């Protein structure tokens, strides 16, 4: 493969009939719709990039394009999905009925790499389900990529039951296909085969490694199947419509309160860098406030512009002071999902600052700083908070007023001019007394008091929410329902 300068883009766009640049501009529009911040410069860079890397060089093409358009790794998944919708149609015709032509691999495994079996129908469509299952098992055993791809296509044609024009999502077809393949059973079959082949009993470690390897291959097969379904849906419904159905919120826009398990795992990963940022922010802010010792060298340097007279004294930055943070978090049912996230946030924060104290409350309040200290495992800390913290006073329904009372009585004297207090909760007080005088005094003594509310702003002060009353005693009250907003809060601290 030798590529030298080409006058125009390589011929052959994503689909036979669309020129590459048109396809690309539709692609970029869709990325923007999905929330990616693609600037004009980046758009132009992408257009230039595709003139240098031929689309046939699939992976390099994808990554090169990504490097001009995606500058934040958490957006990569979204990019990949849109890329697949726009650029996976090359070459083969995909129609739902006419897929029976093409030369299937017929017994001998398809040539690896570029010659992936075309069409997928052909000879394979004559196989019995048992024969197909056997081929699948063999292909997985040998890690035969080309064959797996062909089998994925065959499986989709057979089992997904796709009909043109039916308004059903891809997950439904995926489910139907996978149900017929029984991949859990396949994994066990593969493990049995591996055990038989081994000269002696597999040790637990060997067993684990085999299982991980097969698991990996099965995962790849699933992705092939998913991609195949998606390609067919694109063929049926068109690129734009398909991209629209697949649109999902970017990780930073996922609502804490309604995050799925998977999304929550992603969120947890994202918290850590954010708290490091928070740490830097808080430290920096103090540093700019005050002047430090005289910087002799710098003063002399500037004196040169005054003919050697040290007319303009220069100062070193003072050492950043250690910020003290108190986190007070509602962990009641109404914010349960948020609370889980909150605890991770607290944990991450305590890793960043030397002086963090954390408190959790429902209608009673307890200090949990110790649970987070020296633990390496957040799961353990969360477990202890949930089982050991003494947060229920009467009935386990939020009572902010009472919780604040306990806080003030027991820990109020520890709040000082260096303390930043962060209160996390929805301020749904079950119509108890607000005791907002406590916040007023707290604001007086503390450096800053911030309130982070996981509820949409539109719900504030409706029903039993009294966030408005509390917020009159805070330096800032922020809607924090997703990472983007949490990040904005951190930014605003400057």
């Amino acid at each position, binding site marked *: 493969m030798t590529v030298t300068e080409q006058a125009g883009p390589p011929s052959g766009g994503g689909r036979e009939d669309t020129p590459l640049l048109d396809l690309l501009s539709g692609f970029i529009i869709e990325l923007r719709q999905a929330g990616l911040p693609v600037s004009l410069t980046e758009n132009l860079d992408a257009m230039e990039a595709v003139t*240098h890397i031929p689309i046939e060089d699939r*992976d390099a093409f994808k990554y090169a394009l*990504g490097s001009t358009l995606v500058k934040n790794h958490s957006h990569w998944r979204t990019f990949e999905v849109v890329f697949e919708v726009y650029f996976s149609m090359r070459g083969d015709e995909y129609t739902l009925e006419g897929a029976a032509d093409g030369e299937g691999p017929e017994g001998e495994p398809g040539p690896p790499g570029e010659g992936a079996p075309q069409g997928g129908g052909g000879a394979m469509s004559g196989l019995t389900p048992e024969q197909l299952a056997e081929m699948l098992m063999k292909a997985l055993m040998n890690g035969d990529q080309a064959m797996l791809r062909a089998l994925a296509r065959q499986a989709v044609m057979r089992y997904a039951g796709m009909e043109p024009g039916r308004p059903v999502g891809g997950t439904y077809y995926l489910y139907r296909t996978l149900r017929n393949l029984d991949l859990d059973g396949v994994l066990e079959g593969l493990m049995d085969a591996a055990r038989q082949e081994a000269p002696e009993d597999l040790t637990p470690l060997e067993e684990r490694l085999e299982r991980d390897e097969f698991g990996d291959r099965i995962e790849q097969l699933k992705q092939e199947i998913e991609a195949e379904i998606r390609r067919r849906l694109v063929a049926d419904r068109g690129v734009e419509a398909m991209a629209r159905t697949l649109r999902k919120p970017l990780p930073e826009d996922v609502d804490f309160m309604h995050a799925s398990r998977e999304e929550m795992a992603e969120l947890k990963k994202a918290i850590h860098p954010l708290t490091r940022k928070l740490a830097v922010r808080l430290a920096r802010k103090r540093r700019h406030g005050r002047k430090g010792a005289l910087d002799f060298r710098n003063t002399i340097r500037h004196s040169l512009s005054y003919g050697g007279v040290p007319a303009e004294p220069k100062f070193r930055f003072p050492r950043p002071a250690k910020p003290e943070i108190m986190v007070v978090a509602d962990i009641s049912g109404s914010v349960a999902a948020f609370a889980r996230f909150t605890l991770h946030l607290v944990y991450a924060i305590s890793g960043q600052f030397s002086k963090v104290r954390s408190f959790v409350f429902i209608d009673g309040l307890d200090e949990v700083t110790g649970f987070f200290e020296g633990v390496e495992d957040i799961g353990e800390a969360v477990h202890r908070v949930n089982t050991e913290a003494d947060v229920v006073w009467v009935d386990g329904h939020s009572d902010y007023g009472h919780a604040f009372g306990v806080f003030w009585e027991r820990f109020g004297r520890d709040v000082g001019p260096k303390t930043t207090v962060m209160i996390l909760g929805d301020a749904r007080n079950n119509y108890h007394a607000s005791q907002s005088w406590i916040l007023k005094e707290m604001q007086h003594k503390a450096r800053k008091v911030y309130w982070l509310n996981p509820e949409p702003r539109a719900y504030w002060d409706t029903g039993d929410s009294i966030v408005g009353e509390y917020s009159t005693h805070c330096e800032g009250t922020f809607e924090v329902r997703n990472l983007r907003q949490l990040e904005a809060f951190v930014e605003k601290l400057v």
Partner: protein
Amino acid sequence: MDFRFEDVDGVRRSLADANYLADDGIAGIVYLADRLGKPILVEGPAGTGKTQLAQSVADITGARLIRLQCYEGLDESKALYEWNYKKQLLRIQASGGDTDWSEIEDDLFSEEFLLTRPLLEAIRAEDRVLLLVDEVDRLEVETEALLLEILSEYQVSIPELGTVTATQVPLVFLTSNATRELSEALKRRCLYLYIDYPDLEREREIVMAKVPGVDANLADQVARIVRSIRQLDLKKSPSVSETLDWARTLVLLGIDKVDAQSATDTVNILLKYRTDIDKAVKEFADRPDDLVDDPT
């Protein structure tokens, strides 16, 4: 304009010859950076070969590596240039009181008193250079702005000397550990490359390339075990450097087949935290079926 590379695969092959194992993404983006004359911003977990990539690309292009290591508080005088004030003071003293001041001043701010720092050095270089701005996220936002002019125009203006323009467009790599979000302006100017942990095959090849005396079988086991460990929910996953350290240790100990015992004995090279080590050791010893998924 002549380019450094023929095609993507050529980049991949040259890097492999220099013992850097790149995937299609890495090779493709390096190739593109050369074609578009743009810097590459490299992010990814610690120890995945970000810095090494810059060094290896310098190797294969026969370029001299100029490295600017960033840290908080790094300023213009360390990144770009500084006037040699000691020498200047001496010059002032030597002149006595009688010379014309403006004459001295001209003299003071001439080449002779200029201390060139990495950024200026890269721009003024006559030979082939590659500029590596390592850990750019540690710079303060204000200092980051300094990079912008340089990265888009490949020139800097020095008030006393005028504008210095590069005679060539050097390859530029910036690495970041994402301790803070870099400015949009900086990102816009760069191609973005995220280097994740390598897949099984590539990690095996890295071990083969980097660990003297390792055989294919051991390299394969090492890569597999590391992959399995990375799937655990750990405080810190093993990096490529740790994989390499581990493989070297196994070779030193003369172990050619890793079993649960030898893995347990040496796992502290791969993992740093007590709880992580405990988790891994448990994985080595237990049959997968015995494990109950732990909620949370």
